[in-house]
């Protein structure tokens, strides 16, 4: 008797699921055959380019487009701002020009005349006092638990410090943008670079006064999103309107500077911290002032995340957002968590130094304040073995190598929910044994097609290439947006459910045709077995379906164990710092990551590598630099906005924390967690190497040298 329950197979019975599986669209991507929004060239396509504000804050006094309209090749101009309107940041869209060729669009932009009344800007996001003086502060909800003041008075040791982390951009390699094409003046087809295929049609339909049914969103491939591509965007709507006006398809991808200034920014966060502990290093109180921002709304990170991952009973965080003339905030991979970790687990590391404690011991001692002390203790043990913490860790500032080189180790940890998003899938099994699956999901880079294919092929026990996976259209059953690491659970749960139901229906057909008890049937390697004995092969079984295909719909998430929530991870880094140049070299960087049921080992590991490299990026290289004098984002290009290159990452080690127990939990999202604790980990390693804290990320050579200069000899 085989029970018909919605569950994954026992771990040992998987043929495909959990093994390393090459992406089914890997060749299409590597050979350039994969078509992204930026690649859509339907016949007659016009090219659009944006005119943006050169000022951080200004009022438009005059805007003249007539001359631009008559520029050769220019077909239409969409004005985004009117006379009298205020532009609120450098890079805000003012007008969009559609033309026969990109160079003609640029000619058109040059012919637009704009006169601005320049207003007084404010962009100093790190300076709380200045912001208060300029009345740019935006007090946010305070977090206050227990008795912080009284506890600090009686604490055996108090560490006080300043920590910060600057605004970074999403920096998707494919900029935000859309290709819009109208059919019969009434139906709109949008190729949109989006992580929200199913949720964007209405965002076009409503403002354009269309029926939602008349809008189709397509996104077969997108070149990165990282939380910034959930909306139609004003660029998408502008492209649709320009296409309607001209009767021609319009492709509008943001130029790189506009992409950085306008389309995706993660808020900065700065904090003055008081952290109290008893003589053994048990944290007893946290008291912090918190500020930061990205934009005119003036919001910093959520105060309740501090101190990060450690729930110190007496804690208070007073947050103040700062209203600046900067581009709008978008969710950035694990929203607010990387900043929270960088502000608080650095302070813990400094407290350990003050107590002359190995930070490993201090973290270990305080695990009772985390959601899962046993998990973290085990992960710390594994990470320490991988990085050889016991052999390599030395007290702060004492590990001197040849000449000006100093070596250090550091650690931090993180948590993430990783719940599955809501989604529906449709599975169709044909009589010839081939299978199709449809869902309005997207591949943000995690390998969505492949995990869907694995889920279905594993269930039917058929080869992966017999499953055709269809995603990327809003006309398919709806799927949630790829945010918060929700996609793997979001798509695998419904596909497992639907595939199981289809398999059970096929079992019923087989039972009837071959006169066996349906409850004895199982599928194994292309065959249907009864009590372990072959009855027929897969194709013979599916031939019983007949000419009308078998269709089953699956939904999720449900509380049936296919998906779950809550993961943790520990990271440790080993760095060498040159105290003459301030340059940091990563020797080894280790991530131990809890992840529930693994669908595809190859792409699961890639997610962790990816998180670590993005973490190295914000820890050592990247930041938005707003110039106080001009208010401009002065490094909004790829030469001056620094990102790590292939030679900058050191040796990375990924350890997927995996037991029969974690497998049994179900699928949990993996994309966000490994990016969270990188900043704190690398900052702690650098502090251990050079003997002082580099308080603000990214730890550029200048910031390292400044920290060393202020250091006691």
């Amino acid at each position, binding site marked *: 008797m085989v029970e018909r329950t919605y569950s994954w197979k026992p771990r040992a019975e998987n043929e495909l699921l959990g093994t390393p599986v*090459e*992406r089914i*669209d*890997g*060749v*299409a*991507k*590597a*050979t*350039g*055959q*994969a*078509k*992204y929004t*930026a*690649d859509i*060239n339907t016949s007659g396509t016009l*090219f659009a380019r944006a005119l943006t504000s050169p000022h951080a804050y200004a009022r438009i006094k005059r805007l003249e487009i007539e001359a631009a309209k008559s520029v050769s090749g220019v077909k239409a101009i969409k004005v985004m701002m009117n006379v009298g309107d205020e532009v609120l940041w450098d890079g805000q869209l003012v007008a969009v020009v559609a033309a026969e*060729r*990109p*160079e003609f669009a640029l000619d058109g932009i040059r012919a637009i005349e704009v006169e601005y009344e320049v207003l007084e800007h404010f962009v100093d996001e790190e300076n709380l006092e200045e912001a208060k003086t300029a009345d740019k502060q935006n007090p946010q909800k305070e977090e206050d638990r227990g008795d912080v003041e009284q506890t600090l008075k009686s604490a055996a040791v108090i560490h006080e410090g300043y920590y910060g982390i600057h605004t970074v951009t999403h*920096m*998707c*390699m*494919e*900029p935000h943008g859309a290709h819009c094409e109208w059919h019969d003046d009434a139906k709109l087809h949008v190729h949109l670079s989006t992580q929200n295929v199913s949720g964007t049609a209405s965002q076009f339909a409503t403002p354009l006064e269309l029926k939602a049914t008349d809008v189709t969103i397509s996104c077969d*491939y*997108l*070149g*990165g999103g*990282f939380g910034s591509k959930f909306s139609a965007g004003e660029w998408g709507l502008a492209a649709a309107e320009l296409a309607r006006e001209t009767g021609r398809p319009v492709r509008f*991808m943001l*130029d*790189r500077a506009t992409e950085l200034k306008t389309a995706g920014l993660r808020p900065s966060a700065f904090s003055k911290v008081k952290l109290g502990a008893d003589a053994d290093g048990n944290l007893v109180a946290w008291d912090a002032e918190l500020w930061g921002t990205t934009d005119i709304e003036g919001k910093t990170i959520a105060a309740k995340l501090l101190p990060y991952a450690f729930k110190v009973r007496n804690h208070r965080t007073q947050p103040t957002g700062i209203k600046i003339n900067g581009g709008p905030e978008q969710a950035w991979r694990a929203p607010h968590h990387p900043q929270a970790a960088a502000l608080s687990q650095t302070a813990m590391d400094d407290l350990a130094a003050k107590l002359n404690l190995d930070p490993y011991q201090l973290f270990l001692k305080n695990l009772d304040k985390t959601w899962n002390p046993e998990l973290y203790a085990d992960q710390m043990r594994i990470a320490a073995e991988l990085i050889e913490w016991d052999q390599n860790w030395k007290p702060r500032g004492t590990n001197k190598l040849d000449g000006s080189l100093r070596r250090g180790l550091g650690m931090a940890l993180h948590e993430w929910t990783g719940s599955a998003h809501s989604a529906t899938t449709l599975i169709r099994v044909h009589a010839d044994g081939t299978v199709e699956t449809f869902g309005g999901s997207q*591949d*943000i*880079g*995690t*390998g969505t097609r492949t995990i869907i294919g694995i889920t279905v092929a594993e269930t039917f026990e058929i080869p992966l290439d017999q499953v055709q996976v269809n995603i990327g259209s809003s006309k398919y059953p709806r799927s949630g947006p790829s945010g918060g690491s929700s996609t793997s659970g979001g798509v695998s749960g419904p596909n497992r459910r639907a595939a199981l139901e289809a398999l059970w229906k096929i079992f019923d057909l087989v039972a009837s045709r071959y006169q066996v008890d349906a409850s004895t049937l199982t599928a194994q390697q292309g065959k249907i077995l009864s009590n372990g004995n072959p009855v027929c092969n897969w194709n013979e079984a599916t031939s019983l379906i007949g000419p009308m295909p078998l269709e089953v719909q699956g939904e999720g998430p449900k509380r049936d164990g296919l998906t779950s929530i809550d993961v943790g991870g520990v990271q440790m880094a080993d760095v060498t710092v040159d105290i003459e140049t301030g340059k940091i070299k990563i020797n080894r960087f280790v991530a131990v990551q809890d992840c529930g049921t693994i669908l595809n080992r*190859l*792409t699961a*590991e*890639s997610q962790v*590598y*990816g*998180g*670590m*490299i*993005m973490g190295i990026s914000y820890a050592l290289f990247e930041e938005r630099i707003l110039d106080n004098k001009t208010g401009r984002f002065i490094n909004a*290009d*790829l*030469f001056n906005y620094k*990102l*790590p*290159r*292939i*030679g900058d*990452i050191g040796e*990375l080690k990924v350890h997927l924390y995996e037991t029969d127990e974690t497998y049994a939990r179900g699928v949990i999202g993996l994309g966000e967690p490994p990016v969270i604790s990188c900043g704190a980990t690398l900052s702690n390693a650098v502090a251990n190497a050079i003997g002082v804290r580099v308080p603000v990320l990214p730890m550029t050579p200048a910031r390292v040298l400044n920290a060393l200069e202020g250091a006691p000899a």
Partner: protein
Amino acid sequence: MGQESQSSGDKAVFNRRAFLKGSGAAMAAGAWAGAETTSTAAEGPQTFKKNLVPSGPGEVILNVNGKEYALQLEPRVTLLEALRNDLNLTGTKEVEETTAAGADTVLIDGKPVLANSRLAVECQGKQIVTIEGLASDAEIINSFVKHDALQCGFCTPGFVMALRGLLNKNPHPSAEEIDSALGGNLCRCGTYAGIKACALELARQEGDN
């Protein structure tokens, strides 16, 4: 979209001297505009040849992936724009307007070149290979897929081309040589570890069989 040229007899004519080596497109445009005009009526209308500096569009003949294409382009059009927008060879990606990302890497006469750093007009008479022309290079493509040296995939063709360019020149590069040769290519998803593994494996195999 460009038309494939039926006549290949003109090809040798476009053997003009290189105006610029290694400079960006913006500089190239400036230099072009300042060059001496020696156009003669005998050469006919608007065909871009050596020493000819027209202002409007003219015929540009490009040899891409072994095929000749005749295009009508202004001299300011970059090779990247011509490939993507006129020839619909969109595997070569546009990440930005300058040359810091490497997603626009193509091979010109076997060497990796950033397509955004060249005007289409100056690439006449050269053998241009794009990622579409490397699609049958199974060894390097399969290695990228095997090592999952790609995530969103937008930067991937550029890395494939840059690595092919390196291996053409140096079949057995060291890890440091790989870091250096691929250091002009950016990835945001974080695929560097996979790319390194792929490149090191190919460096061991290349030319051995």
